[in-house]
């Protein structure tokens, strides 16, 4: 019989990733699957930008620390929401957050660490750029994954990119 499968589902709190998770649960999930929700948090640009060496602005140390703490709290809260999702659906698994400048890279790395048998991702996330049919993160994952990838297209949100010419 089939061994336990490790299923990685990329989540970011957007409607698209919620749809991807529901899709996984309805169409893919099998009893015994070990589900790993991989969360690549959107990091506060001001805290993590590498451009500060050239900047004229200097932030007060207390302000920086407050922002960092706020961010940690936000990430923790998000992780709890995802953990609750697993519990609500009665799924065995875990929630993992990965810090990465490129979400796609982070998910691929997490998938390798978790020995994923498949990856589920929404076709877009929170990003606002609608220039393509498929978001950059899912595109990256499909190209770089060594295991099958499910790209879940949200039916109501399938927006056509605007014609630029």
């Amino acid at each position: 019989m089939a061994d336990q499968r490790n299923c990685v589902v990329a989540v970011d709190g957007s409607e698209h990733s919620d749809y991807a998770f529901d899709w996984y649960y309805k169409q893919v999930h099998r009893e015994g699957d070990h589900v790993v929700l991989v969360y690549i948090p959107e990091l506060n640009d001001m805290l993590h930008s590498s451009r500060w060496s050239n900047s004229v602005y200097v932030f007060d140390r207390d302000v920086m620390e407050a922002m960092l703490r706020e961010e940690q709290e936000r990430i923790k809260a998000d992780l709890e929401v995802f953990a609750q999702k697993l519990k609500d659906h009665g799924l065995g698994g875990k929630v993992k957050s990965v810090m990465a400048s490129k979400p796609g890279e982070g998910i691929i790395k997490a998938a390798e660490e978790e020995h994923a048998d498949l990856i589920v991702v929404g076709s877009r996330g929170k990003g606002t750029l609608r220039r393509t049919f498929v978001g950059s993160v899912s595109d990256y994952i499909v190209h770089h994954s060594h295991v099958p990838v499910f790209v879940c297209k949200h039916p109501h949100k399938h927006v056509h990119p605007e014609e630029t010419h």
Partner: protein
Amino acid sequence: SQDALLPHRLFVLLLQTIFFETMAIILIPVDSSTHSEYCLDFYIKQLHREGNHVFSVYVGDYYGDVGVLEGPTPGRIQELEQEDRLKSAQIEEHVLQVLKENNITGTFKRVLGKDVWHTIVEYSKTIKADMIVLGSRGMGKIRRTILGSVSESVLHHSHIPVLICKHPHHTSHHH
């Protein structure tokens, strides 16, 4: 060609009225490549659920737009079309056999179209598929890209979830 697909649509409607809650309609484009084989196998072993109905489709070589003065002669075209029909029949036999062995209800259809990806996406709409399962590439000889052009385009233009099935032995040499 719309009329030719009418029986399919009626069939789908019939299935949906009987099984409206429990079944998913799965579209699996197939060809004679190892990727296609792996993909079908993956679906059967990892994704199939009782009640799902599989529509397999082979997009045949299309010679409809060849001008009078260009390309092969009409006689040669007929030969090529016949070869493709034979090829399709072999694929059909194999796919239906595999589905039957695994107790999966499924059908096979050969569809012609100018752009393979477009044909697949249109067919997915016709049969009201719930998801498309396809390999990361097919018969294409050019290995310069990680993802074949058909898979790439179907992924981009599909309105429904797509599973890109990566063949494990063929994905190790990219960097």
